[in-house]
C-alpha cells in the first residue's frame, strides 16, 4: 500500500504557483493550472502543429513528385529559375520576428508587461512586412513571367507560397488578438497561455519557411 501511495503522490514543484485548490483529499491542495508546458492548451497546440506540419510536408512532397514525374528541365516551359535576392531578404525579415516573439514570451514569464507588448509589436511589424513583400512585390514580379494557371509548376509555386502566406495571416491575426489583451493587462506571470500558444504557432510558421525556401527557391538550382 505504501508503495502505491508513493506512486500516486502529487508531482508538484513548490513556489511555481500561488493559487492552490483543495482536492478533498485530507491536507492536499494542488496548483490551479492556467499555462505552462503542462497545460491542456499547450498540448493541443503541439498536435495542431503536428497535423499542420504533415500538411506542409505532403504539399512539398507533391511538388517534388511532380518535378520528378515531369523530368528536366525544371522549372519547365522555359521558365527561369526563381530569383533569390528578394526571398533571402524576406527570410531575414521573417526570421528576425522569431526572437522578438520569443522575448515577448520570456518577458511575460518574468512578469514584464513592457517586454511582452514590445516583443509582440515588433514581431507583428516584421511579419506584416514579410507578407507585404510576398503579396505586393514577389508575386507581382513573378506573375509577369508565369501564373498559377500557366502549368503545374506555376500552380505549385503559388500554392506553396500562398499556403505559407495564409499561415502568416493567421499568425498575424492571432498576434493582434493577443496584443489587444496584452494592452488591457490580461496576462500575468502565471496566466498567459494565449501568448504561449501564439508564440509556438509563430515559431512553427517561421520554421516551415525554411522548407518553403529550400523547395521553391533553392531546389530548382540544385
Amino acid at each position, binding site marked *: 500500500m505504501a508503495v502505491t501511495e508513493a506512486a*500516486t503522490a502529487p508531482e508538484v514543484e513548490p513556489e511555481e504557483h500561488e493559487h492552490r485548490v483543495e*482536492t478533498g483529499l485530507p491536507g492536499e491542495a494542488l496548483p490551479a493550472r492556467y499555462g505552462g508546458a503542462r497545460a491542456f492548451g499547450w498540448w493541443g497546440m503541439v498536435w495542431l502543429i503536428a497535423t499542420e506540419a504533415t500538411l506542409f510536408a505532403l504539399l512539398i512532397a507533391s511538388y517534388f513528385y511532380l518535378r520528378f514525374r515531369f523530368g528536366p528541365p525544371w522549372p519547365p516551359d522555359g521558365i527561369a529559375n526563381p530569383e533569390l535576392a528578394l526571398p533571402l531578404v524576406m527570410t531575414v525579415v521573417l526570421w528576425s520576428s522569431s526572437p522578438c516573439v520569443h522575448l515577448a514570451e520570456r518577458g511575460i514569464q518574468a512578469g514584464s508587461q513592457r517586454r511582452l507588448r514590445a516583443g509582440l509589436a515588433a514581431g507583428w511589424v516584421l511579419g506584416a512586412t514579410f507578407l507585404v513583400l510576398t503579396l505586393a512585390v514577389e508575386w507581382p514580379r513573378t506573375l509577369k513571367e508565369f501564373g498559377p494557371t500557366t502549368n503545374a509548376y506555376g500552380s505549385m509555386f503559388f500554392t506553396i507560397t500562398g499556403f505559407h502566406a495564409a499561415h502568416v495571416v493567421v499568425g498575424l491575426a492571432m498576434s493582434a488578438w493577443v496584443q489587444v489583451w496584452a494592452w488591457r493587462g*490580461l496576462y500575468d506571470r502565471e496566466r498567459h497561455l494565449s501568448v504561449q500558444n501564439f508564440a509556438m504557432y509563430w515559431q512553427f510558421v517561421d520554421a516551415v519557411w525554411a522548407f518553403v525556401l529550400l523547395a521553391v527557391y533553392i531546389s530548382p538550382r540544385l
Partner: protein
Amino acid sequence: MTGTATVTAPAPDEIEWRGEVVRRLDADWSEGGGLGSWIGTVDHKRIGLRYLYTGLAFFAVGGIESLLIRLQLAGPDLHVVGPEAYNQLFSMHGVTMMFLFAMPVLSGFGNYFVPLMIGARDMAFPRLNAFGYWMLLGAGLFLYSSFLFGDAPDNGWFNYVPLGDSRYTPGINIDYYLIGVILLGISSTGGAINFIVTILKLRAPGMTLNRIPIFVWGELAMSLQIVFALPALTLASVLLMLDRTFGFHFYDEARGGDPLLWQHLFWVFGHPEVYIVALPGFGIASAIIPTWVRRPIVGYTYIVIGELSVALIGFGVWVHHMFAVGLPNMTLSFISLASFMVAIPSAIQVFAWLATLVAGRPVLKTPLLFVIGFIVIFVIGGVTGVMFAAVPFDQATTDSYFVVAHLHYVLVGSAVFPIFGALYHWGPKVTGHLLDERLGKWSFWLMFAGFNLAFFPQHLLGLYGMPRRVYTYDADLGWSAYNLASTIGAFILGVGILVTAYNWVRSRRRGAPAGNDPWRGETLEWYTSSPPAPYNFVTVPTVRSREPMWDQPELAAGAQPPDAGGRPLTGGHLTLSTSPLDARPQAVVHMPHSTPWPFFLTLALLVVAVGVLLDAWPVAILGVLAAGAGLAGWYWPRGQTQET
C-alpha cells in the same frame, strides 16, 4: 469483485460526506435546461450520444442506399434506378458509411466512454468537442443537400481524377464531395487532438500507461492516425478544388500535372482510414471480452503493441491500392512486404482474444456473440487481405467484386459488429436500462447469417469476373444466382439491424434498470451511475490496478472515500491534470462552461462552404468574417477558465 451500489450499504458518516459532495457537484456541473443548454452543451456524454445517434441515423441512410444498389443488381438487366442515380448511390454509400457512420459512431463511443474509463470529469477541450459534433452534423447535411438538386457526388468514395476533374464531371457533384470531406476533416482532426490530450493528461491518479484500458489505447491509435493521415485527404481535395474552380494544373497531365498524384494522396489517407475505422473496433472487442469471460485479457502488452504497430505500418502500405496502375516493380515489392507485415500485429490481437476466450468462462450473451462474430468475419477479411498483398493476385482481381467482398468483410467485421456488441454492452450505461437478450440474439444471428449470405458470394462473383460499380449485367454471364443470393442476404442483414433498433427504443421504456454495474465489468465506467451524472464521478478515483473494479472493492459503492484516495474536487468546474506517463496528480484545471460559440462557428463555416460551392465569393467572405467573430466570442477571456 463485489456487487453493485445497492449491495453495499454505506455507513452513516459516509452518507453524510457523500451527500454534501453530491450537492456541491450538482451545483457546479448542472448545465440547466432549455434551448441554450441544448445548443451550448459541452458535456462529453451528451455530445457522445449525439455522435452516436447521428452516426446511426446516417447508417440507416447508407443502408437504404445499399439496399437500392442490391435491388438494382438482384437480377440481370434491371432498371430499378437510373444509371446516374446508381452512380450517386454507390458513391454516397461509401462516403456515408466511412465518414458519416463509422467514424462518428466510434468517436461517439470514445467521447462517451474514454473520460469515464480513465476517471476524468470531461474531455480536455469540451468546446472543441461540441464544435467537432456540430461540424460533423453540418458537413453531413451539406453533403446530403446535394440530393435535393440531383447532384450528389457520383465518382465513388475515392473520387479518382481525371474522371473527377472539371473536364469530365463539370457539375457541382464533385465540389460537394471535396468541400464535404474538408469540413469532415476539420471535425475529425479536432476530435482526434481532443482524444490525444485527454488520454495523455486527464487520466485518474495511478492510471499509469500499462493500466490504460485497451479500448482507450484503440481510440488513441485512431486519433494519432487521424492527425497524420487526414492532411493528405485535405490537401488532395484543396488541390482538386483549385484545379476545378480556378484552372490550376496539379492533376492535368497536359500541363505538367499528374492524375496519379491524386491516387497517392488519397491512399496515403485512405489506407490509414481503414485502420481509423478498425482500431477502435478492436478496442471495443478488447473491452467486451474480459467482462464476458470473467478474466483479465491475455497478452495486454502484446495487444497494445499490436494496435500501435498496425497504426504505424498502416502508413506504409497505401500503394497496395495502386498495384495495377503501372508503378515500378521495386515499389510494388516494398509495399507488398509491408502489406504482408500488417497481418502479424493483427493476428497477435486475434490470438490474444482467442486465448482469453479459451482461458476464461465465456458467457455467451449478445455482446460476446457480436465479438465472436466480429472475429470470424474479420479473420476471413484478413485472409483475403493477405491474398491482395500478393501483387499478381491483386492485379488479377483488382476492381472486381472480390475487392467489394474483401472490404466489406474487413470493415463490417471490424466496425459494425463491434459497434453492435457495444450497443448491448454499454447501452445500459448510456440509457440506464438493459436491452432484451432474446431480441439481441435474434438480431445477432440475423445479421451474421445475412452478412455472410450477402457478401460471401461476392468473392465468387469477383473470381468469375464481375467488375465492381457496374450498373447491370447480362443474363448469360452466369452471375444472376449469386447476385440474387447477395441481395437476399442484404435484406436479412437489414432486418437484423432493425431488430436491434427496435430493442434499443423498447428498452428505454420497458428495459429493466441497469444499476451501476450490471455485468460486473472491470473498468471505471462501471464505477458510476447509469446514466452518469454530469460530473461523471462523485470522487475522482485513485487507481491501483488494471482492472480497478475487480481489484479495488471500495469502488463498488460508487464513491471511493477520500481516505482511500478518492478526490471530491468540488468548488468549481474542475478536473484533475496528471502526468502523461505515470498519471501523478499535477494540477487542478478549471473547465469551460456551456457556450453557443462552437455552434455559431459551425454555421459560419457552412456559409463559407456554400459560398465556395456556388462560387459566390462575397458570401464566402461574409462567412469568413463571421467565423472570425465566432472565434473571438469563443476565446473571449472569462474568469478562471484555462484559455487565457
